[in-house]
């Protein structure tokens, strides 16, 4: 009978069907169970984020340079939005806004029904209190406090601090693997950028279980947010303020460091910007920053490379003494110019007979031209490197530039030209292709102030009370210049101020004895760069100062600015 066979087939189908079902069930529930379990959790467990406060940045005395204040956002819960119009009508007058604007903020902000939507941000405390009262009889309104950056000292040390902004594409691509996501606020330039990872708060929040419409069905747990770590700087806000006031908006910068340790006490750059504008989204101010072609965001002390002019003569002098090209008694007659082939190299005036001491005090070019020819480009280059030029000082700030220290090979490679004696002549007085940063100049001066050591300048004193350099402290490097020569040059630096004909004589007669060197560097386009770099008190140096004015005229201008700073510091009892 055929039907018997056909029944057998039916039975086979039946067994096979149940077998396949049981097998696929085992596959899904046993082998893929964990995966589907995760998916089901992802479906229903959501996090309502609660921001923590970004770490503060304080100066060496504990003065807060970048702190936080509570800001208030008005949020509306989308799930109770049946009364949206009513809510908006009531809160609009308090916020000095229109219902229409608030409604458009709301509709743009809706993500999911369990996430409250901000209709107005950064409202004042008074407004927040007024809305808290409205909240009593209109459910669905939330006033959410959250910390935002606040700069109690205003623009002070803006270049050191940096500013905050929403993460950009470039930074995101770099930082995504460290847990940064879109819409994160991150530091731009300065300590805010360099130490962003430490300053970032870790977000806490309430984890809730939501249903398929995103409505909260229960609260699972709360993870408190963790504030970012505080960073203490070596800056002294008092000195910093004096330095910034002395700059008075002119293009330039002032660096003051402690010569023994390399601690940066002031790092002022001008023109400057107000970092608060980025927090308050002050479009007017931001636009003016962008349109300003004076480089408001450039930290000139570390990010600008300039010809040093005569302050570089100290390197030439040290090299000449160490290599025996000159001695204390060698005298060169300055007739106001030096003819080399067809070219004529000038001096600032006719100085007559000069020994090295006086050549430094008067900043006589002729003496150093001769030294330059005797030393040659390579030797000057080598000594420049020993004094810290041509490479980053290693300060913990982003966008530091190493500058340029030329040498014959460098010229061959980059300029495709031979090195001439004229290049050595220019090099010897800090002109030509040489470019340095004001911080490098201050670092060089610290060598003369501290008895021969090249220090590594630093600006971060501690992170959450812990010295980040602990255990890997970088000792100052002994510069290979003999103590006798150093003492001699140190004396020459004092003569720059103490001699009546010294180029920085304007700095004499102050309550503190100062030594230093001026510089007037010819700059392409415009006036010369004005330099003064020195240290004080002369006998027991506690401060190295480098004053720089970009296209500021002669070194005299910088000396004047230095005088202003030192007088003010003395008035405030800091010295």
């Amino acid at each position, binding site marked *: 009978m055929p*039907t018997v066979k*056909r*029944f057998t087939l*039916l039975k086979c189908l*039946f067994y096979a069907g149940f077998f396949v*079902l049981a097998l696929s*069930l085992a596959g899904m529930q046993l082998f893929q169970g964990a995966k*589907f379990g995760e998916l089901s959790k992802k*479906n229903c467990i959501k996090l309502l984020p609660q921001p923590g406060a970004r770490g503060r940045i304080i100066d060496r005395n504990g003065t807060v340079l970048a702190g936080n204040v509570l800001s208030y956002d008005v949020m509306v819960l989308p799930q109770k939005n049946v009364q949206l119009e009513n809510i908006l009508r009531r809160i609009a007058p308090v916020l000095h806004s229109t219902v229409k604007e608030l409604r458009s903020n709301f509709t743009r902000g809706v993500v999911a029904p369990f996430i409250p939507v901000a209709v107005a941000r950064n409202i004042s405390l008074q407004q927040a209190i007024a809305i808290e009262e409205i909240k009593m009889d209109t459910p669905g309104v939330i006033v959410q406090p959250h910390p935002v950056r606040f700069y109690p000292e205003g623009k002070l040390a803006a270049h050191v601090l940096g500013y905050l902004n929403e993460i950009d594409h470039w930074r995101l691509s770099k930082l995504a693997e460290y847990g940064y996501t879109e819409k994160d606020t991150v530091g731009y330039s300065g300590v805010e950028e360099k130490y962003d990872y430490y300053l970032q708060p870790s977000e806490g929040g309430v984890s809730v279980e939501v249903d398929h419409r995103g409505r909260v069905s229960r609260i699972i747990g709360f993870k408190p947010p963790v504030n970012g770590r505080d960073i203490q700087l070596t800056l002294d806000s008092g000195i910093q303020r004096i330095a910034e006031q002395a700059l008075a908006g002119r293009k330039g910068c002032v660096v003051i460091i402690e010569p023994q340790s390399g601690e940066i006490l002031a790092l002022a750059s001008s023109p400057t910007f107000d970092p608060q504008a980025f927090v308050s989204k002050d479009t007017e101010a931001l636009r003016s920053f962008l349109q300003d072609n004076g480089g408001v965001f450039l930290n000139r002390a570390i990010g600008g490379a300039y010809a040093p002019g005569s302050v570089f003569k100290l390197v030439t002098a040290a090299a000449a003494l160490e290599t025996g090209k000159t001695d204390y008694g060698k005298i060169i007659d300055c007739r106001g110019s030096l003819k080399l082939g067809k070219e004529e190299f000038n001096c600032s005036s006719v100085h007559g007979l000069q020994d090295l001491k006086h050549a430094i005090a008067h900043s006589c070019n002729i003496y150093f031209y001769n030294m330059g020819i005797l030393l040659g480009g390579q030797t000057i280059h080598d000594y420049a490197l020993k004094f810290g030029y041509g490479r980053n000082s290693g300060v913990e700030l982003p966008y530091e530039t190493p500058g340029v220290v030329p040498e014959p090979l460098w010229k061959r490679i980059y300029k495709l030209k031979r090195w001439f004696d004229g290049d050595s002549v220019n090099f010897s007085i800090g002109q030509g292709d040489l470019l340095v940063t004001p911080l490098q100049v201050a670092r060089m001066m610290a060598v003369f102030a501290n008895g021969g050591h090249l220090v590594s300048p630093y600006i971060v004193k501690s992170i959450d009370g812990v010295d980040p350099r602990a255990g890997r402290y970088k000792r100052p490097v002994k510069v290979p210049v003999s103590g006798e020569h150093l003492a001699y040059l140190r004396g020459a630096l004092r003569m720059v101020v103490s001699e009546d004909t010294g180029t920085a004589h304007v700095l004499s007669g102050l309550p503190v004895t100062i030594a230093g060197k001026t510089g007037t560097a010819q700059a392409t386009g415009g006036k010369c760069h004005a330099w003064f770099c020195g240290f004080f008190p002369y006998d027991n140096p506690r401060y190295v100062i480098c004053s720089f004015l970009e296209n500021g005229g002669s070194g005299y201008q910088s000396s004047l600015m230095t005088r202003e700073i030192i007088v003010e510091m003395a008035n405030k009892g800091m010295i």
Partner: protein
Amino acid sequence: MNRSGRLFLFVALLIALMGIISIYSGTFQKQSGAFEGIYLRQALWVALGIAAFFFVSRMNYRLLWDATYFLYAGMVFLLLLVFMMGIVKLGAQRWLRLGLLSFQPSEAAKLVMVIFLAKYFSDKSADSISPAAQKFGLLRAVFIPLAFVIAPAALIIEQPDLGSGLLVLILFMCMLYLSGIKLRYPLSLTAAALLMLPVGWHFLHGYQKDRIMVFLNPSIDPLGAGYTIIQSRIAVGSGGLIGKGWLSGTQSQLHFLPESHTDFIFATFAEEWGFAGCLALLSLYYLIIREGIRISSQTGDAFGRLLAAGISIMLFVQVMVNIAMNMGLAPVVGVPLPLMSYGGTSVLVTCISLGILANISRSRAAY
């Protein structure tokens, strides 16, 4: 009642109990309006079903032989009635209102078609005691029964209820095969049906096409047509070995799973009771259907034999398609899980079917 009858009663009650528990869970969070006490309604239907089971299992199934044409006519009439004045729920016109209760004729149509086909293919010729079907020509073997099947199937598909309509067609093919007619007829019919598929595609509703497309690739529309499959797979899979516990399935309790008390009751159950529960449930279905096939193969009477086979196939296909669809192994078509899914007609018809099986078993034993 003999051994088979007791088995059916016991197993059916167990499955129905699991069903009521899962319906309670599936609608636990929706305590409003239409879902209020829905599990009690299901319990009522189960009670009615059990009563019907007792009644049918005591009534000689040969009576169905005599009543076949009345049943068929009544079924077509009800389907037409649905077509004209049915209630529309979820975009489909499938229900007739009977006072407080609603009735779904397409569910009953499945059983009636099984009875009709069993009678048609077990007709005896005048000169022989063996069924005439083996000698049927093409006309009597295929075209006449096809005409009788196509009419209700078309009405059901038009409701639209693609699942039940296709089920009727599948039942027809299976019974054609089992009836003992020449093998080339069912084979060529299957081939013809496959050839017709591209044509049939154009008659499908847009959402039905979507469902088949998302079955092939759920990620093409994860929030639309693919949503159900994805959520149902997550529900079944996340059950793991022992499940999340009764009333604790996040997929069903938080409404990620649509239709958690009807077509997707299995996902609700699987999420909360895990692989262990699913295996138990599958075993219960296995017991019932195996018993049905055993009764069929041991019955001498051609009508009873085909009837038992048809009922077993009907239950089997529904269980297979529904569970496969819950696991994302079959496209989403409206096929209930017998005795589990919420739906009075389905429960009642399943209980009556089991009653008929019990009766066939008893009557055979009496020979």
